[in-house]
């Protein structure tokens, strides 16, 4: 096997709200190998952004373990955590609000270096050269070094965000919808850049997105989230060619392909996403599922490995038996 850089065990994050306890992330478990990309997909409210932030401890997890290179970061004290920040970084979705509007490009990118004293005793010129090096790596022109974020377009701002994340030479980067706010032609540039950086610097990514085509292009393994839980996990080719969980199937069928006649009718999900507040102890997708049966109300289905490397959380799909296949004919007729 490879070298596991990150392992997450039973991660939970609950928020108190006036109406009850919000189960934003509810028992998530996975691991990532060094140099690989884990894609995290789901729609709004599934908890993927919260998950990303919990892994970096930008939000304190309620329960669970996040083991980075063998150490549980949830147990580290403030000083140790600050040390760790150099290895784990994040790229945000919104290039407009993720940069301090009052700082120049130079200040934004050099801040992590200066603050963490990564270049002890270095002169101003030396730090600046490092910033220029980073700018060059991500493709920002040298002449923009003293510009302010509001003077630049979304694509360039996102590159600044990437340069900032790289400034500390991290090993692991959480990419939270890094291209969703960008135009299509710029998206492709940034995706290529991220891929190139991964190859050159041996980075490990957790790539959070709602865009299935992008996640397929970019990830080695993918986890599909629904209401704070993983409903399916598989290498990306397997997930796309043989989706098992009904939600994954609906999600994949909803992808609009840019080809003439390429879009057959999608599976229509019933109703709306149920509430993440104090969810009942049953399969959370059951109410919207076309294949449901009584078994689906008997508690939360565990995530099981039903085929090599292919995990599904569904009462009706177990290793060696897939009850949904029998119901398929019944469903399309009805």
């Amino acid at each position, binding site marked *: 096997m490879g070298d596991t850089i990150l392992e997450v065990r039973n991660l939970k994050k609950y928020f108190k709200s006036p109406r009850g306890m919000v189960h934003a992330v509810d028992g998530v478990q996975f691991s990532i190998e060094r140099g690989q990309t884990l894609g995290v997909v789901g*729609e*709004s409210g599934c908890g993927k952004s919260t998950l990303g932030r919990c892994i970096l401890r930008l939000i304190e997890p309620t329960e669970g373990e996040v083991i980075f290179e063998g150490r549980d970061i949830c147990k580290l004290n403030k000083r140790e955590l600050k040390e760790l920040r150099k290895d784990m970084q994040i790229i945000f979705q919104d290039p407009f609000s993720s940069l301090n509007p009052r700082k120049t490009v130079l200040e934004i990118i050099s801040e992590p270096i200066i603050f963490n004293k990564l270049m002890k005793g270095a002169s101003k010129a030396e730090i600046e050269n490092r910033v220029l090096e980073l700018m060059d790596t991500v493709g920002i022109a040298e002449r923009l070094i003293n510009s302010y974020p509001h003077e630049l*377009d*979304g*694509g*360039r701002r996102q590159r600044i965000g990437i340069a900032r994340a790289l400034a500390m030479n991290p090993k692991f980067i959480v990419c939270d919808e890094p291209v969703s706010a960008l*135009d*299509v*032609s*710029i*998206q*492709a*540039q940034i*995706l*290529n850049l991220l*891929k190139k950086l991964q190859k050159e610097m041996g980075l490990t990514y957790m790539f959070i997105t*709602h865009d*299935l*085509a*992008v996640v*397929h*292009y*970019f990830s080695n393994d993918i986890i599909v989230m629904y209401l704070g839980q993983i409903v399916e996990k598989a290498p*990306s*080719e397997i997930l*796309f060619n043989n989706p098992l969980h009904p939600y994954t199937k*609906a*999600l994949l*069928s*909803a*992808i*609009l*392909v*840019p*080809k*003439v*006649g*390429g*879009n057959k*009718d*999608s599976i*229509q*999900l019933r109703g*709306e*996403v149920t509430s993440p507040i104090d969810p009942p102890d049953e399969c959370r997708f059951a109410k919207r599922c076309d294949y449901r049966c009584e078994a689906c109300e008997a508690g939360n289905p565990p995530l099981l490995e039903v085929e090599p490397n292919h995990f599904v959380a569904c009462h009706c799909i177990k290793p060696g038996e897939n009850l949904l296949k029998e119901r398929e004919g019944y469903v399309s007729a009805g």
Partner: protein
Amino acid sequence: MIDESTTNSEVVLEVEDLVVHYELKNETVKAVNGVSFSLTKGRSIGLVGETGAGKTTTALAIMNLVPKPPGVIKSGTIDVCGYKMLELKPKQLEKIRGKEISMIFQDPMTSLNPVIPVGDQIAESVRLHENVSASQAYDRAVEMLELVGIPGERAGEYPHQFSGGMRQRVLIAIALACNPRILIADEPTTALDVTIQAQVLNMINDLKKKFGTALIMITHDLGVVAKMCDDVAVMYAGRIVEKGTLEDVFNDTKHPYTEGLFNSLPDISKKGTDLKPIPGQIADPTRLPEGCAFAPRCRYATDACREKPPTIHQISPTHFVECTAYDDPGFHIEGWQNHG
């Protein structure tokens, strides 16, 4: 320039040589620079482009809703079902908007009045254009809600009680309440989840078939275009660079920008091939060059491209492209990689 897709049917919209600029204190934003297209009854056209392409401004101009300072309609004519939109007075325009032509905007969160129940908002649109009583208008509102898939009992509820997808359906109900001939949808599903997007688009398609409404779909998403549109107009820097039927533009792509857009999309059926993005930045509408606005980013660009405005070539009775490179009869683009 005869566009054959329209000769045999009723033309409901005719836009000719539209030029719209925003004149600001220090600079002028050339949002739309000579756009022409037409729409036939019951058909749908996709206006595709990225930020700054001029799609929303075109749509606003069609409704004559461009904010007048700083917006200036420098030239062009717009004909909606025989009405000359740019020449009518405000009172006349009010009668047409909502009745002959309607528009739904991108953000369902802010397009609805938060303090008025949804049923009343739909009924309001009906009352404005038809001579019916309040209760008849309300009945029609309930009917429209059912039509868009929302239980009629919910007509008394407020917008915040609905989810994003449902709010968008309410907006569609308002837009279609008076059975307009044309519906303009400006990125209607961009803010919605993928599964909800599928529901909403299917619904728009059903209603379009049922009422024979012509549709202008503004989007940057080529997948949405493939699903919803009969015709496509690709826009860049305020001009239509390629125009044709869906098959023309998708299967016989001619313009380098269109090619670039397809190459920028990850293809689900082929993993691992690198994306071929369009290099450079999107054209700045305040600083458009003399020649072709796409030339700085185009790998086929020649000196002729940079010096003069691009030539318009007609590829087929329905397919047009604006590209000087095609002056050379032997020229063709490489074809997009992810085709097939």
